[in-house]
């Protein structure tokens, strides 16, 4: 057993341990910030996808809806790594660098907002059409229907779907480690893939799992807590 503690595997891990908390933090904030920004863009787009269709609350021209859907589908179908290569020049322009954790934020947002838009669309479609019609029958404006009916009524589902977005974006942020992003992903890839230090890779991955669990637990609890449809 003493052989193990003298192995390069163990030595590397011990060497890297002090970096782990910061790596966790980097992963956490890259994910949370990217998701938040993706929501800023994706939420209004998701709303438009629902209210803008024919027979919706605020019908938009067909060509505009077609264009919106096409763009979202296009961005959703580009693999994340390729998208990142496209967007990194934008990172350089916006943040001044194309390496490190801040530089991964623009590609993460670019990858996440079309996904978030679809998730928001799915949530809003769950809202009972009868309730929307009731609001219309009371003289609600389209904006009032969005703000006071559709979003609040679908809040539990929006929270659940935001949790899905968070965990997915966390996966993307780890992938960003390949091309110079920071955080747990970078450690796992640099040491596990490039230097065959599997122990370090396993530990970094295990920490990623912990972060995912954390997001998922908090998200699920929050969604259940604010759902007034449950009899309690």
């Amino acid at each position, binding site marked *: 057993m003493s052989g193990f503690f003298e192995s390069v595997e163990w030595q590397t891990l011990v060497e890297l341990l002090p970096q782990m908390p910061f790596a966790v933090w980097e992963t956490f904030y890259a994910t949370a910030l990217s998701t938040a920004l993706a929501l800023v863009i994706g939420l209004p787009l998701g709303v438009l996808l629902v209210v803008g269709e024919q027979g919706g609350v605020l019908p938009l021209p067909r060509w505009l809806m077609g264009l919106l859907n096409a763009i979202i589908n296009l961005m959703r179908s580009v693999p994340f790594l390729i998208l990142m290569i496209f967007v990194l020049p934008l990172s350089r322009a916006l943040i001044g660098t194309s390496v490190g954790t801040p530089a991964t934020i623009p590609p993460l947002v670019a990858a996440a907002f079309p996904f978030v838009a679809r998730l928001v669309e799915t949530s809003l479609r769950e809202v009972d059409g009868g309730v929307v019609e009731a609001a219309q029958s009371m003289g609600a404006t389209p904006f009032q229907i969005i703000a006071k*009916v559709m979003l609040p009524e679908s809040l539990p589902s929006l929270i659940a779907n935001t949790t899905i977005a968070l965990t997915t974006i966390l996966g993307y942020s780890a992938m960003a480690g390949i091309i110079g992003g920071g955080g747990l992903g970078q450690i796992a890839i640099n040491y596990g893939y490039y230097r065959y230090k599997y122990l370090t890779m396993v530990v970094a991955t295990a920490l990623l799992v912990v972060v995912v669990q954390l997001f998922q637990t908090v998200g699920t609890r929050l969604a259940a807590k604010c759902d007034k449809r*449950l009899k309690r």
Partner: protein
Amino acid sequence: MIEIQHLTKRFAMAGGTVVALNDINLTIPQGDIFGIIGMSGAGKSTLVRCINMLERPDEGTVTVHGRAMQSLSAPELRAARRQITMIFQQFNLLMQRNCLKNVCFPMELAGIPRAKAEARAKELLELVGLPDKAGAYPAQLSGGQKQRVAIARALATNPEVLLCDEATSALDPNTTHAILQLVQKINAELGITVVVITHQMSVVEEICRHVAILDGGSVVEQGEVSDIFSNPQSDAARRLVFPAGVPTTELLPGRQLVRVAFGGGTTTDKPLVASLAIECGALVSIVAADTRLVNGQTLGSMVLALPQDPASAQKAVAYIQNYPGITMEEVENV
């Protein structure tokens, strides 16, 4: 007063056009409880949705208290809709808001300050008999309680007209009765004109003064409820008054059938069948009979099979036709 003139509504479908409403003409008096009854698919919901322009008519006009609904601008229409509120079969409450906030909702839309809205919402919850449910969420209520909250919500903006689209169709008979009583009370105390859409004759019977019968997108009969009950003219009306249909008598093949209807307190105590036997010597058989209370009036009808012998059958017909307070018609014996 609601005036509907030459109202036509078509829906473009994959297989062609559906004419949901065909040249509807109706006048609904101020302060009335007006029933619109018809089978499923007759166009009732479409008609009521045309009153507040949730559905745009293709032709015709809808005038509510002098306002031509189809020519209002969007903001005018929203203001008009506060005066023409609606309750639904599925209640359509906001599930993430408690009862108080649900009742506040239309006032919130209208920009009424929160404190004032909440005070009024509390009054309304009291009016509908749910003073202790302000903090409860719709999921915690029974169907009847949900409909009461929906009624309170519909009253929040002091409407002139209340539209009820199958408002009791999801409720059991006792709850239906209680909700109808509440609607009647609102009509009597607040003077709100109520339009009741239903497929249940019992609902019309219980609270409506006037009724229009809708069949295949057309009004086939309209008038006072008691008249239509005692003497339905159209096939659709007959189907509704006698849900099981006019009996076809394999029981009595070859016998001529007549339907007699009597209305009001004056005739129910007269023994028609007995006097037919005694005074006219005609022995008739009762094939079907039904009596009901409509707005406090007893209305009844019977289907009688006349004697086989044509001479006495004719005599019986003449006797019934001259019998006071009774209307009679021949029924085809198929």
